[in-house]
Structure formats: structure tokens, C-alpha cells
């Protein structure tokens, strides 16, 4: 998961949470994520992340569709 276009928000699965700091997983890779704007997010939740900040939680089944789409767009941008 590289740096992408600015507006892209990637759905990460929250696997670690420590106050405002967390770790999210996508496609096996781990990524630091700030949780300032998703105070209700729990471990196992999926969050949409933009520029290192989770901006929304999303339902699991929808998250999977988004994750697939994100890969598509990333491939398009390569």
C-alpha cells in the first residue's frame, strides 16, 4: 500500500488501538492510523482512512467491496 492520490480513502481493519493511535490492516500490510475522528471505533471494525486519519467506520460487508475497489483504483493509478 503506497502513497496514493490525495483523495483516496482506503478501508483498513482496525487491529490495534491505543488512544488516538491505531494500526490498520489492508491486504496483509499494516499501517499506522489516527483515530481522532472515529472515537467509537473498536478492534475489528473497518475504517475509511484518508492521509493517515480514519474518517468513518464502515460495515464489514461493504468494507470488503470497498477494499476490492481500492485495489482496482490503485492499479489504475500505477
Amino acid at each position, binding site marked *: 500500500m503506497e*502513497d496514493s*492520490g490525495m*483523495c483516496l480513502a482506503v478501508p483498513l481493519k482496525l487491529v490495534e488501538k491505543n488512544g488516538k493511535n491505531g494500526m490498520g490492516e489492508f491486504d496483509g500490510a499494516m499501517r499506522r492510523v*489516527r483515530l481522532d475522528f472515529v472515537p467509537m471505533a473498536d478492534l475489528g471494525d473497518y475504517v*475509511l482512512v484518508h492521509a*493517515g486519519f480514519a474518517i468513518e467506520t464502515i460495515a464489514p460487508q461493504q468494507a470488503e*467491496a470497498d477494499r*476490492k475497489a481500492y485495489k482496482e483504483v490503485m492499479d489504475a493509478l500505477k
Partner: protein
Amino acid sequence: MRLNEQLEALHKEYEDVKPGSVVLMEICGTHTMAIAKAGLRQLLPEGIRLISGPGCPVCVTPAAQIDRILALSDRPDVIITTYGDLLRVPGSRRGDTLARHKAGGSDVRIVYSPMDALELAQQNPDKNVVFAGVGFETSAPGTAASLLAAAEDGVHNFSVLSYLKTTEPAVRTLLKDTAHPIDGFLCPGHVASIIGAEAFRFLPEEYGVPAVVGGFEKESVAAAVIRLAHLVHHAQEEKNAGETTGTAGDTESTGTTETAGVTKAAALENLYTRAVTAEGNQAAKACMDIVFEPCDTEWRGLGRIPGSGLRIREAYKAHDAERRFFGTEGEHSEDQQTAEGNGYTGEPAGCRCGEILKGVLSPEDCPLFGRVCTPMDPVGPCMVSSEGACAAAYKYRGIL
């Protein structure tokens, strides 16, 4: 209804509509790309013209603002941190980019998040780390959070050059241009995550323009555009019906009113409910509000738009790169020298990005497109940004 069924129904609806007479605008760089990749324009009825507006924050940053970032990068005490998109955007001089300055020895680093920039500042206490704050409401809360953290942790050498912009004032400016009417808006999904779908209510209510908040997968964008096209057609049918059945001549009759164009049928629909609520993200909005206040700022192509920028509040001025390095009161001041309001001042010769950004010109209609201006050697930001209209058109050219 499946997508191809929706498309069929739409073609039926639009079969008597004059080619290109209905204008739909998207204002999100990711939508620009998704639409281009899906070849959506070729699938829509001819009556519809789908155009790209100022949805790419890098693209709407005027050359003079880029020049400022470039100037800062040359200071030996400064580390410029930026989103990757900005690296190859030229300022007012052709080829003058952060990438070139970096190659010339300036310390320019790509970061994924403003928090990475903050961390860099903590790791390099002897340098001034400046974050190039370009973006819309999706990026603004994170930028605000980094400033809050800098203030809290006393990271004195961290500052932000805020060229953040907000969506609504630009949209209103576009709608004022009666020479180029816009009949429907595809609203940016992640901006809407932050500000809420209701933030776009003004479109149907004040301008009679239907609006749909769309997501980003191919199907999702297509569905949103199709729905928008349908709403626009429906609104226009209603309006026409009102005009033909309304009484002629007598303006005092109750049938026709002076609030022309604001039909009851104009609607706002949120098709991206998985990520967008009516009111948006309160925590993010609150964070933005603590750190930023509205200011006037210049948009490439649109000129100066009052209240459309975000500047760092007085309370956080210690981390305002504008004040620190340019000594100005937060706003991108007389340095702009674009007091004439001419969005083209300082832009490279022949560059038509300004018109592209307003959706008035298509990428293919720019004389430089593909000939002089290519992704390898861009003239203006619309070609170099990964979300620019020209970059999208170039990348997916030849898709039938």
C-alpha cells in the same frame, strides 16, 4: 435495477434531448479518475455532458501559491513535507517543480499524513519542517489534528502552509456563471463524509439543481451519475410542465412565480450511505473549527473566492508557516498580485487549466493537450496531478 437496465432506461428518458444540452458536473478528483476509467461518458446518452469541475485540490492551487512553496524549499533550514501529488506540479515557470528543487538539493520529502510531517519535525529539531497543506475538507481535519498535536507537544519547528480550501463557496461561484449553466452535481463522497450530505442541500434548495452524493467503485459512480441524470431530467420535465400549464402573462397569478428554476422536483440524494451521514463527522468538523477559520483565497481558474480558504487561527499562529516565513496575517496576501481577479495571472503561457477546472473546456479541446502537455512533461496541474482531468483523459484516451 441492474446497471445496464438503468442505462437503458436513461437512454429512453433522454432520447429527445439535444446532444450535450444537459450538463452534469463532478467535483472530486477520485470521481474524475473513476469516470474516465469506466469510460462512463461513452455509455451515457448524448443529451448528457459530464464535465469535471474543480475537484482536484492540487489542480486548483494557483501558480503563485506553488511558487511560495518552491521558494520555501530553497531555504537551507527548511524541510518541505508534501503529499506526493504536489511534487511535479509546476509553478509559474515551466518545469519549476518541487521535484526539480529536490534534485537541486532542496530538502523535500513526500509524506502520507501530516502526522508524518510532525514526526519528522520532532526528529529534526534543528530544521523548520513545513507541511504543504493542500486539500479540501477531507484533508483539513487531519491537518488540524497535526497542528493541535504540535501545539500540545510544543513542536516549535513544525508549521503548516495552509492552502486548504472548502467546497461550497467554489460551487456557488460556478453556479453564478450563467454563461455556463450546470444542471446537476455529483457530490464528492469523502468531503461529504466530513461535512455531511446535508451540506449540499443548498444546491436543490437555493439553485434548483439536483445533487447526488456518490461513492467510488465503478458501479457506484455509474449508478450515482445515472441517478443524477434521471433527477435532472425529472426536474426539467416538472419545470416545463409548470410553465406550459401555468397562466400566460399575468405575473400575479399563483401558477408561476419569480423563483424561476427552483422546482419542487430538485432533490438531494445520498447514494454513499456506507460512508456518508446526513450531518457528517462531528469530531472532524469540530477539530477543523478549533484550528482553522475561513478566509478569502485564490483558486486556479476561478480567481479569488471569498471565504473559500482555511487559515490557521491566531491561537495557533506559532505553527503558521504563512506568518513565520512570509510575515503575513494568515491570508495569501498581496504577494498574489492577482488583484485583477484574473485566474490566469502567473499561469504558464498557453495553459488552459483554468477553463478546464471550471468545466468550460474539455482536456481534449486544450491546444496543448497531448502535444506539448503530457504527463511526462506537463504544463499545468490538470495534467500532472493523479486526479487531474487532463491526466485522466490522457491515461484513458482511446477507450471507446
